[in-house]
């Protein structure tokens, strides 16, 4: 499916706009040509990548992974666009933890344990078995910037970490980028437009004579 509002540019047109003629073509341009072709033909019609079906977490156990899924979806839920669970933020979190320095990974696992401990204390069940209302209530405690309670310190710190990872994992995902940010990943532009608002000090948009108007 082509990206709405973005015409598929022909390879010839794209290369013309990039100023790559048929004449002297430096060696380095060969790889660009291939990329441009890919961008013109493949990217707008991109087939969404298919997540691996047999994925298993490397840094987290199954319960920790379920907890991360629940937490990330609470932070960025499905609304009119997909949420963190649908874009598999948990897999990104696992990859980061697998790469992290051991002290950081340990602190994160300790945070997951803190969430479960507090959930048990408040609701008598682990976090993933609590009701959505209970989960929201717990996160409200640890997400409050005003919360300076010593007993909640580890939880507040952990929430900051899982929230930051959820933000990165969500907005950099293929779906998050396209559906939430409306960024189609285009990386070839023939020109850059600047400010065209005289009220900001910019130049009004140029009105080209009809004969010089470029065909789109």
């Amino acid at each position, binding site marked *: 499916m082509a990206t709405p509002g973005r015409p598929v540019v022909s390879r010839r047109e794209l290369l013309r706009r*990039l*100023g*790559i*003629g048929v004449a*002297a*073509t*430096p*060696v*380095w*341009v060969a*790889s*660009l040509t*291939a*990329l*441009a072709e890919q961008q013109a033909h493949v990217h707008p019609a991109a087939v969404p990548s298919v997540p691996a079906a047999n994925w298993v977490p490397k840094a987290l156990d199954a319960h920790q992974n379920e907890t991360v899924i629940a937490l990330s979806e*609470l*932070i*960025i*839920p499905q*609304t009119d666009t997909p*949420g963190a669970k649908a874009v598999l933020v948990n897999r*990104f979190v696992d*990859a*980061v933890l697998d*790469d*992290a*320095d051991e002290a950081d990974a340990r602190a994160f696992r300790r945070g997951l344990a803190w969430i479960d401990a507090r959930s048990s204390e408040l609701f008598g069940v682990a976090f993933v078995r609590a009701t959505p209302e209970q989960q*929201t209530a717990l*996160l409200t405690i640890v*997400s409050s*910037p005003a919360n300076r309670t010593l007993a909640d310190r580890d939880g507040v710190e952990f929430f900051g970490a899982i*929230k*930051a990872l959820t*933000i*990165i*994992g969500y*907005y*950099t*995902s*293929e779906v998050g*980028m396209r559906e*939430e*940010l409306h*960024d189609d*990943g285009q*990386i*070839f*532009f*023939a*020109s*850059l*437009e*600047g*400010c*065209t*608002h005289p009220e*900001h*000090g*910019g130049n009004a948009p140029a009105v080209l004579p009809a004969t010089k108007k470029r065909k789109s």
Partner: protein
Amino acid sequence: MANEVFDVVIVGSGASGGWAAKQLTESGLKVAVLEAGRRLDPSTDFTEHKLAHDMPLRGSEHPPKAWRDEQPIQKLCYQCDEYAHELFVKDTEHPYTTAAGKPFQWIRGRHVGGKSIMWARQSYRLSDLDLKAASRDGWGVDWPITYAELAPYYDRVENFVGISGQAENLPQLPDSRFLPPMELTCGERMLQRTIKERFPGRLLTIGRTAVLTKALNGRPACHYCGPCGRGCSAGSYYSSPASTLPAADATGKLSLITNAVVSHVVLDDAGRCRSVAYVDRMTRAPREAFGKVVVLCASTLETTRILLNSSSSRAPNGLSNSSGVVGKYLMDHIMGSGAKGTLPVLKGIPDPRAHRPNGVYVPRFRNVTDPHPAFLRGYGYQGSAEVSKWAHAFAMPGFGASFKNAVRQRPWTIHLSGFGESLARVENRCEIDKDGRDAWGIPVLRFDMAFGDNEKKMIKDMADNAEEMLKAAGVQDIEREEDMAPPGLAIHEVGTARMGDDPKNSAVNRWQQSHDVRNLFLMDGSVYPSSACQNPTLTIMALASRACDYLVEQLRTGAV
């Protein structure tokens, strides 16, 4: 090739080595370029077209763990991230030492093209305000050349490299031979107008950058994909492998020798350079490249290391160091100070910046006409105004649907960051640490450098004035930043083998020829007598071009 004698052996294939190779081969000379690293393959080594979700860690600002542990210094560079870290050296193979309590962060890339692959491309001419600064304020020494002498070489370099920018006719920041400028965003226009109306003697202009806004010399115009620092498959910004080295290669006179880790320069019995000694990076075998002339373009600090490691009975303090200045007067620009904020007045107006690989520039306004009471010299600001895509989410409170919805209100953000001159001080220096060896057995450098009182006062002024200008432009939520990065991290290190007319207090003459050894030339940032506040690469290339003209003439007349 074993005993081949080249006309010129150049050490280093980066911005200036590329220029020397082009100009000397085009003059008919047979040239060898020694490069410590390998050739890069744009199709596999460059990552500028990868999106975050193409990367395992989504483009983390640090290298992945296996490399992170080997790049404790390099990872501090903004560009040494998950995408581009392999363009930086492993610190474990390239150690150096520092004086107690005085950090120095040496950022390096060893491959064909050197740092011209990862550089930030900002390109500004110096003026006589910089070159003759000592005569005006009494600190340090003047450059031995004038702007008028350097200007034709700026022209030559710019006409080949391609610098996009806007002519402003400023005496302190001469215009280049510009390609068309890139456009300003709405927020930048607003700040530009405010500065023009309310801050006499100051202006904001689009960054001057070595990125092509139209095709030039067989290289295509920029296609605005954005992240230049990961390499450019199109060759649309200046890097030596995309422009000067192919030009040199086309002459048939160039021998590019990769994986050649240079240790020192070897003299003959008459005290002239005979060859350059190097270690094969892969086999560790010692090798030698013979030349009638040796040109060091290895980068400021590597060139200095080679000179100091070339000591002999004839030159006990190191090569070209009868003056004793080699290693001394180390400079880097000061940075880390400025201000940032948001522009709510632009709420809802889309960002036309897209992936513009360039920012804005506020040229130096301190000590241009009237002396400033607190400090000597000056600084320029680099900055930009753009719509935050999603990074503002980190600072937003809460979670859930309301949080997700609030992130959709994308703020316009704006920032100004100063880059200032650091004064040349004899005590800021590097020397050989006799106890240290790199992975190839070559003695390492030890740094002893700290910024001084003049720099600290300038840092405060940078923050004060950035804050004041942003406030005047209606910027909200202003955050002052008044830090000073440790020396090295601006990656504008210069000095340590300065040029001058007096052999008693300089390493090379006005043509960058060694005072002590006539067939030795230095053509990188090591020759700077003072740092100015402009990004140095353009000037380094212009100086190299000028020195090459002289070298060719000297060879023609038999003087060298």
